């Protein structure tokens, strides 16, 4: 279940993994949004190229990207196929635009998942973004329960079989069994969440009281460079698209 140990991050090393998570997040978000707002094919195509280059510079191994990113490629292909079938005008161009766009918008987000450590992100959200420690660390602690709840789900499935319940190939019965299992998982989640909250309060966690951060870090030049790289790359892609005369926005 190591794939479920989501707090075991970052998966990559290098510049992006070392920089402040909030900087990486800012870069990914601005890049993704700006590309999503462009309506032509050139902007996302250029952005995609720049993103791949940035990854190499940022120290994300392409092998890791291929392993983690192939579902994105598959899904993008699916989106392209539906565009091909359902587009009102010029299906081929629509399909190509759709695929490039989907890839260029989603790729930065995939990279964030490879380079950000959740604990550092929580620290950064509290210190720099003034997010309440209750929200940041409460959520972080709950994320730790993911592998446990996944095991719980499996146990619930086995226990249903043990009690004589299975759906076979009947989809309606499967939905009913599924719903019952969801309820049982939610009961387990509330129980565990309540116990975890008690444990946190027992350690003196009090949203109203002052607290310190054990892992302070100063803003470095790298952090600033990473944060600014997002909008800069997006602007470059837009500029190239404008220079070739193909730029238009989604609202125009």
């Amino acid at each position: 279940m190591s794939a479920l140990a989501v707090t075991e991050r970052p998966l990559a090393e290098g510049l992006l993994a070392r920089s402040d998570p909030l900087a990486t997040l800012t870069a990914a978000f601005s890049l993704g949004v700006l590309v999503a707002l462009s309506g032509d094919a050139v902007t996302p195509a250029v952005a995609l190229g720049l993103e791949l280059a940035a990854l190499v510079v940022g120290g994300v191994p392409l092998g890791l990207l291929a392993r983690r990113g192939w579902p994105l490629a598959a899904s993008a292909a699916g989106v392209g196929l539906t565009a091909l079938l359902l587009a009102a005008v010029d299906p081929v161009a629509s399909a190509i635009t759709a695929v490039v766009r989907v890839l260029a918008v989603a790729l930065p987000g995939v990279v964030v998942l490879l380079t950000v450590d959740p604990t550092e992100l929580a620290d950064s959200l509290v210190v720099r973004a003034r997010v309440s420690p209750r929200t940041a660390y409460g959520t972080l602690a709950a994320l730790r329960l993911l592998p446990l709840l996944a095991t719980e789900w499996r146990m619930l499935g086995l226990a249903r079989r043990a009690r004589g319940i299975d759906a076979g190939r009947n989809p309606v019965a499967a939905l009913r069994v599924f719903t019952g299992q969801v309820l049982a998982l939610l009961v387990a989640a509330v129980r565990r969440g309540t116990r975890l909250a008690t444990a946190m309060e027992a350690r003196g966690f009090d949203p109203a009281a002052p607290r310190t951060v054990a892992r302070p870090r100063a803003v470095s030049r790298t952090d600033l460079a990473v944060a600014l790289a997002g909008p800069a790359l997006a602007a470059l892609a837009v500029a190239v698209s404008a220079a070739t005369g193909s730029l238009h926005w989604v609202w125009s």
Partner: protein
Amino acid sequence: MPTRKATSKHPTDVRAGEGHHRPPWRVVDTVVLATLGVAFGVVFWAWNLLWTATGPAFTAFPPAQAFMYGVWLLPGVLGMLVVRQPGAAVLTMLVASLVSALLGSAWGLQVVWYGVLEGLAPEIVFALFAYRRFGAAVATLAGAAAGLTAGLLDWFYYYRDWASGWVFSYVGVVVLSAAAVAGLGAVALVRALAATGVLDAFPAGRRRTLV
């Protein structure tokens, strides 16, 4: 702990958000909502496995797909019904989508931007009722709002070149499914959860008959 009477002796008071003084967020509110979000992340992941395992039985069964779109939008409405605090829908939906992203959703972090917006929609509906109404009608409306947002986002992002007839029917199906599954489904789930006693420390559990 000197003698202190609980603020609410009458369960019906709770529904009105205890007059004008809403109690502040507690640690347990945040952690339980986030854990519910994690649980939903697991549910989505399991659904994908089920989908692949049963294959044809499900892909040839479109209601299952529409149902699942509703389930995807469930966490926001459910979270709000459980703790009845401003921001509850966004937080629960954010965590559920974050877990989906971490478990390897094809869309990476983009699922999270989606999740935030899809949590914001029911949040706005509950806010319009000043966070005082948490019944089936408002929940259905909140579910429908989540569905509308999801449908429009899909159209904007993936299906911009679709013929308009397709777009209308697509968005319509998502809204209906969301109203039924995310709205009424959340009401039913919260009721069933409350009956198990695990929600006793939350507003949603306080209307249970004393045992």
